[in-house]
């Protein structure tokens, strides 16, 4: 079951109340995996009542499933704004922000969820995974410990145990697992965590294989990984034929995992199967070479970005561009394209800058910077409609981006949507962005609206900024 679906099913008791309710129909369709019907139902519900929090949440889940992160985030944000005292919208928002890589905001949304629903296990699990993936393992572990104290569920227990193992504390992992197993003795992930914890204890390693066996029989979330872990233990115990069985099974499940083939080669070699070992080694080398190539490319791009930025900062723009050009297939990396767009813009090559920003946005649809730059450069190129679309996308991604509100104001003004433009400028100022250009545009809009005194105040503010 996907996380999105699991999250939405959490809402079902409330939704089941009225089958005539389009939002409830949407939820039912969602539960049946009928995403198209669900979308239609949620959109109908929103059309009938734009304040229907459940429908916005449902739409967010459907959009997430469809890969439309922008819509998913926007819908979650709308739900959270409509029902700030309900935990579900904050939870959905946290999940979508996490997907968009906006860790700080995601963590804040999950923290709010926990305030409102302290016993909701996913409000601990998901942010812990985000923290773990951001190399903040200690914080992830602390968060799960907090969750475990409030809601000692099997899922939380399994995740806590895995993270304790990763932190090198098999004792704590075992402690947690033993408690959690009393609630759900057939939970495969818990059984796996117990097997791993025992494997990490030199005095109890021999007990571990039996627990691996039980875990796999019960079913685990990542069977290939579990078999690889089991094989690691069996290799350590020099039980080569048994290790081969697990590795061969793992290789079917994870055919691109280099480590499996490396270990398979070692195990076959120990069992006297030299030819089999060589074949596995060949596969390992092939996969490893691909992994190494990806890592090297990442570092190559990182270095090129650093060096180009340094050159650009020294106003050596042409050299900066040449440095970026030196990276083969650099146009497949959004960070490269963003920097390229900025440099081109600084070189007054505006159309090329806009094209580069658009490419970056296509490569990273939820990236704020490429989306904002697309809006900015489209505006500079006089493509106001295009700029408006892009800046609206930007603000959906980050409503707190003050510069985007300023740009939005200018684009709206050019579209003669004066009231909206004035509100946007005001929003930018409230959020802390200020510039002579903003004040001038704002003054113009206010003047066109007949708000002469306010217009004069903006011009005075502009003078102060210039003078200052």
């Amino acid at each position, binding site marked *: 079951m996907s996380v999105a679906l699991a999250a939405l099913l959490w809402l079902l008791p409330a939704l089941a109340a009225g089958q005539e309710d389009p939002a409830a129909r949407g939820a039912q369709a969602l539960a049946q995996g009928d995403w198209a019907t669900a979308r239609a139902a949620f959109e109908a519900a929103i059309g009938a009542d734009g304040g229907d929090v459940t429908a916005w949440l449902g739409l967010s889940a459907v959009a997430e499933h469809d890969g439309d992160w922008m819509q998913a985030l926007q819908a979650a944000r709308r739900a959270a704004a409509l029902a700030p005292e309900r935990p579900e919208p904050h939870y959905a928002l946290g999940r979508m922000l996490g997907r968009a890589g906006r860790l700080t905001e995601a963590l804040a949304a999950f923290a709010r969820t926990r305030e409102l629903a302290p016993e909701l296990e996913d409000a601990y699990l998901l942010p812990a995974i985000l923290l773990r993936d951001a190399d903040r393992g200690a914080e992830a572990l602390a968060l799960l410990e907090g969750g475990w104290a409030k809601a000692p569920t099997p899922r939380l227990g399994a995740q806590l145990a895995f993270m304790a193992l990763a932190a*090198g504390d098999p004792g704590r992992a075992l402690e947690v697992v033993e408690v959690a197993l009393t609630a759900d003795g057939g939970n495969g992930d818990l059984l796996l965590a117990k097997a791993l914890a025992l494997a*990490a204890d*030199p005095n109890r390693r021999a007990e571990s294989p039996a627990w691996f066996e039980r875990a796999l029989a019960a079913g685990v979330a990542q069977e290939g990984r579990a078999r690889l872990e089991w094989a*690691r233990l069996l*290799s*350590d115990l*020099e039980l080569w034929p048994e290790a081969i069985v697990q590795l061969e099974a793992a290789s079917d499940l994870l055919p691109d995992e*280099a*480590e499996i*083939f*490396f*270990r398979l080669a*070692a195990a076959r*070699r*120990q069992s006297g199967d030299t030819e089999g*070992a*060589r074949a596995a*080694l060949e596969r*390992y*080398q092939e996969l*490893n070479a691909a992994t*190494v190539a990806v*890592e*090297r490319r990442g*570092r*190559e791009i*990182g*270095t090129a*970005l*650093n*060096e*180009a*930025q*340094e050159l650009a*900062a020294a106003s050596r723009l042409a050299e900066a561009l040449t440095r970026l050009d030196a990276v083969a297939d650099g146009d497949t990396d959004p960070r490269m394209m963003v920097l390229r767009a900025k440099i081109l813009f600084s070189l007054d090559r505006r159309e090329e800058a806009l094209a580069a920003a658009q490419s970056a946005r296509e490569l990273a649809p939820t990236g704020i910077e490429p989306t904002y730059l697309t809006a900015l450069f489209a505006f500079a190129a006089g493509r106001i409609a295009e700029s408006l679309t892009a800046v609206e996308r930007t603000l959906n991604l980050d409503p707190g981006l003050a510069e985007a509100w300023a740009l939005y104001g200018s684009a709206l003004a050019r579209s003669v949507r004066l009231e909206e433009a004035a509100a946007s400028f005001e929003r930018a100022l409230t959020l802390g962005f200020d510039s002579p250009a903003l004040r001038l545009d704002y003054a113009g809009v206010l003047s066109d609206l007949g708000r002469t005194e306010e217009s004069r105040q903006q011009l005075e503010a502009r003078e102060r900024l210039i003078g200052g």
Partner: protein
Amino acid sequence: MLAAWCGVADGATSPQLLVDVTAERGVEFTHRFFPTGEKYMPENMGSGVAVFDYDGDGRLDLYLVQSAPVLAAEQAPPDAANRLYRQREDGRFEDVTDRAGVGDRGVGMGVAIGDYDDDGAPDIYVTNFGPNVLYRNRGDGSFENVTASAGVAGRSWSTGAAFIDIDADGDLDLYAAAYLTYDPEEDRFCGNAQTGLKAYCHPDVYGGQTDSFYLNEGGGRFRDVSAQIGLIPGEDSRGLGVAVADFDEDGTLELYVGNDTTANHLYTLGDDGRLREDALLAGVAVNGSGRGEASMGISTADLDGDGRQEFVVTHLDEETNTLYRPIAPGVYVDATEAAGLATPSRPWVAFGVVPIDIELDGDLDLLVVNGHIIDNIAEFDPALSHRQPFQLLRNDGSGRFTEERDGLGIPAPLVGRGLATGDLDRDGDVDVVLTQNGDAAILLDNVSHPVDRALTITVRHPRPANWGTRWRLAPGERLQVRWYERAPSYCSQSAPEIVLATGSQAVDVLRRPRSGPSYRYRSLRGERRYVFPAGRQETGG
């Protein structure tokens, strides 16, 4: 306050194992890395140390490698040079560098010791960023720089090196690992360009270099056979650590070369006179997960007391210091987790590593010196530090280790690089010398035990045939096997001494050369030093 000073915490006494005797023994060597802020790669890599008896007086001396400005080594101040410290009769060291003529002023990396001209006096090979240097020991307390005539200047950046009689012709050949193809004039920007914060680059940013292999031609000359002998070419080699041992137990010596991030190499000389690289099939090219690691320091020893050699390779943080255990001749498995080495090593950037029976209880412990390679790492991640702890991994006798940091004579963290051992004060136990990048070298006296528990064997005039000789207590005693070889650690060399923990009783000792008959030495006693060969009766058996 007093309790803290004495190393006593919470009422428990932490036994003192090592004591810092640097000042009282007269060693005043501070490594200088001449930081420019440009983060030139060679700045952070040095340097090593060798423990050896250069003048044959029976007392161990020290050779410490210094650095120099990367862009202009010749601009190093006069006092920035490699240093030779001779041990006097009173145990203090005196700086005899100028008298001996061994004060190379290159951007120093490592040192290897070997008697390449077989005149009984150990010679010194220094690796540099820049030309390497071979100093021939004249045997009168002085050396001559014979690099040009010997033809062993190496690549543009050499690191670990080792003498090895690879072709078994009775003289020592020379291997020098090469690290990166690096030109400081074309230094790359790594770090955070937006903040201008620069850092030393990942080695992948630069290409590798093919290592150097020199065959000893006799007459003081070497022949560079690097291009013909079968070395793995440059791009896949970023050599750091080099170790020599009989890894496949066939009676000949092999070369193991640790490469930074890429697969390590295990070279065996084939019948056709070419090297065969077999690390992957031997299970020692990468770690047990199939990943290449940083591979700075290497040490070989029987760590689990089964009479076979394991070896440990040190790596970066987030990697483990990897222990390879033989499960058949020439076949190894990664036994890091089982040995308990994974958890203590993951947080640290490890360089030097040496096996040492620190308390003479018959099993070999490990000392590891750590220090991050990025001096401003805390500015990138406040959780990380440039200075890192000195670690003892204590062996429980079965090859399983637990970490200790107390009682090691160094309360503050270090920027550790080189690490070497030897019985510096001739009291029967093993003492320690370590070097730092940009800080002082430290001498540590082993004070952990009564002095009557060890039997130390020094090999006089170590001919190539002696290398790889296996020494052990005779059957009936606890199995202790030691090999006569020079543990390389990181860019360093330990004294080639055999130390066996005996207790106070007399024991028989067996010596088994790599080929030919074994010998039995009867009724040797602890608290004694033996010199081999020294006229003592050898008994075949």
